[in-house]
């Protein structure tokens, strides 16, 4: 499948460093040569801790290839801001979905799945499934 039809992935964290690092981790684990449009949207616009609606909108627009955009978030206000933007109707690409998934594990699952050319539903399902992996 061509690069143009890949599902885009946005990683929203309260911290710019966390969002950027998780994006790097997910891209690295997706394997060599696999291309997935991934954009971090971490922290506030002035570099502080928090959530920025503007950064989220810009990140979603930057990864949109017409195959949908999966948004993964960390804590409280990140979740609420994405939900509020989705409710606005015109702030995010048409086929954007907030994915219910653990942030780090979900991001890796989403990027690896998207790299195979899977559609948005499959990407979201793979990310959500990361919740079922127990560590003890």
């Amino acid at each position, binding site marked *: 499948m061509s690069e143009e039809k890949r599902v885009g992935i946005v990683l929203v964290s309260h911290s710019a460093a966390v969002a950027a690092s998780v994006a790097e981790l997910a891209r690295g684990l997706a394997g060599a040569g696999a291309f997935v449009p991934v954009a971090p949207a971490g922290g506030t616009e002035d570099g502080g801790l928090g*959530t920025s*609606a503007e950064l989220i909108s810009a990140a979603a627009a930057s990864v949109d290839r017409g195959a949908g955009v999966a948004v993964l978030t960390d804590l409280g206000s990140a979740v609420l*801001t994405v939900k509020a933007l989705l409710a606005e109707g015109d702030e995010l690409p048409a086929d954007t979905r907030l994915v219910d998934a653990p942030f780090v594990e979900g991001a890796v699952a989403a990027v690896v799945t998207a790299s195979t050319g899977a559609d948005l539903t499959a990407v979201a399902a793979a990310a959500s499934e990361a919740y079922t992996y127990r560590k003890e």
Partner: protein
Amino acid sequence: MLDADFFRRWMTATAASVEREAERLTELDSPIGDADHGSNLHRGFTAVAAVLEKEAPDTPGAVLVLAGRQLISTVGGASGPLYGTLLRRTGKALGDAAEVSEAQLTDALRAGVDAVMTLGGAAPGDKTMVDALVPAVDALAESFAAARAAAEEGASATTPLQARKGRASYLGERSIGHQDPGATSAALLIAALATTADTEAADV
């Protein structure tokens, strides 16, 4: 009847009140939150006052929708999408009428509060802004003054509660004994509404 100017003055009065009380809101947010509620809301409502001055929407609904939009994009914490949703949903419920009655405002505000409860998943008693907003909307059917009193009482009544939503919920029992900053700022919003109505009455 309440026109767009009334709603603009309500938002401006809220911005002034949040500016006055920003320090107190942040103090309340220190023991149980991340100590940014005052500065976050101050930034948000300053932006609201600025955009309303620049764009001057001409219906009550448009004033609140624009204000809500501004809060979502500028606050940076959970109070942004929550207050943004409250105002925007209230504004949408008011539709495009040039003037609205107090009863219409009450119904619209109830729709806004319901939207906040859906977005945040909070119910009364969870130690959130909902604890001030729900009694305020119930009392608004009686009068603006009753709504203000109910909101303030609701905010005070959060002190002995244990937080069940947001960052404060991680503190468990340690959240008890502190008035909720979100309920406190919600009471400021309702107090500003009552003040605006008082001014209106005095002008007539």
